[in-house]
């Protein structure tokens, strides 16, 4: 009799594990498919010196990249990709706004950001702000940045930052990120399924 009870409890336990595992995998699947959505909010200045906020870009898809203009490797590579994506989008390019947000606002003032982004593609919009505004913006995107002292770097420091590109929907919702190095072809292919 006791043995039967053990067997029954065992069966319950197995069922619970299977059910739980199934639920968990289902949850993870849904998460990775649609991503936990949130709405980034910000108040910044664009590279023409005009005030902008998250609502400025409603109605369009936004590709958002955090970087700094003293960055010679990761940032030019990503901004060059932005340009490539915009060229490949053809007629759909008008529905996508590529945004470059500096995480080094002390050095990257409006004119610096303007000079930098315009070197890559006329469609890229550069954004800067006060230290406080930039910190607020980054946390709103759940993006990370830090100042790293480095003796030989210009002004004695460099920046570490989230390297992925964020996709924001026309409604202002976070949709997904594209990891650094995602090819322009892949980004365009993904965008074409959504636009």
């Amino acid at each position, binding site marked *: 009799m006791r043995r039967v009870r053990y067997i029954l409890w065992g069966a319950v336990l197995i069922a619970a594990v299977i059910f739980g595992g199934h639920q968990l995998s289902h949850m993870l699947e849904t998460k990775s498919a649609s991503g936990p959505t949130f709405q980034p909010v910000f108040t910044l200045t664009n590279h023409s010196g005009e005030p902008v906020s998250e609502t400025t870009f409603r109605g369009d898809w936004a590709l958002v990249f955090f970087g700094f203009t*003293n960055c010679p490797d990761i940032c*030019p590579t990503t901004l060059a990709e932005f340009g490539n994506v915009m060229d490949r989008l053809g007629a759909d390019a008008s529905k996508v706004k590529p945004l470059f947000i500096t995480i080094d606002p002390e050095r990257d003032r409006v004119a610096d950001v303007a000079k930098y982004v315009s070197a890559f593609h006329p469609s890229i919009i550069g954004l800067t702000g006060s230290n406080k505004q930039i910190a607020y913006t980054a946390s709103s995107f759940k993006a990370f940045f830090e100042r790293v002292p480095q003796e*030989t770097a210009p002004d004695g420091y460099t920046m*570490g930052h989230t390297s992925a590109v964020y996709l924001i929907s026309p409604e202002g919702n976070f949709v997904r990120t594209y990891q650094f*190095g995602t090819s322009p072809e892949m980004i365009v292919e993904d965008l074409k399924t959504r636009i």
Partner: protein
Amino acid sequence: MNVLKITSITGVLSLLLIAMMTAQAAADSVRIGDVIIEAPWARASIGTSRPAAAYLSIRNEGDEPVTLTQVSTPVSKMAEIHESTMSDGIARMGTAGDVVIRAGSEVVLKPGGLHIMMMKLKQPLKKGEKFNMTLTFKEIEAVDVVLPILGVGASGPNK
């Protein structure tokens, strides 16, 4: 006799021409002993106040490792080998120190990884122009390479 002379002159000239053409074709890659520097390029800079980056690959066909210790170029007051690293989605950059190219292996400097960071530019790097760079190794003599300057949106030696 005369005919022979003309023939030999023509022969020498032809050889010279072939040699020049070959040199032209391989203008960008340089071989010193068992070490070959290939596909060097730099991205056009945005003025002179921001650092610029250059890339190339180093192939070591020898039996001993070689170590790249230093880089220098007349276009920059300070050029260093740097490395972009990625951890948990955060990009960071720092000096790479000495770069060891093991025997029979190749080290590729490319966007998002190892690169030559040129700070304190003395002149802007303009697309279509070229500049010189000296690579200093621990085990072998220094190598001079010529780097073509590609567009600011370039992502590799061919695009």
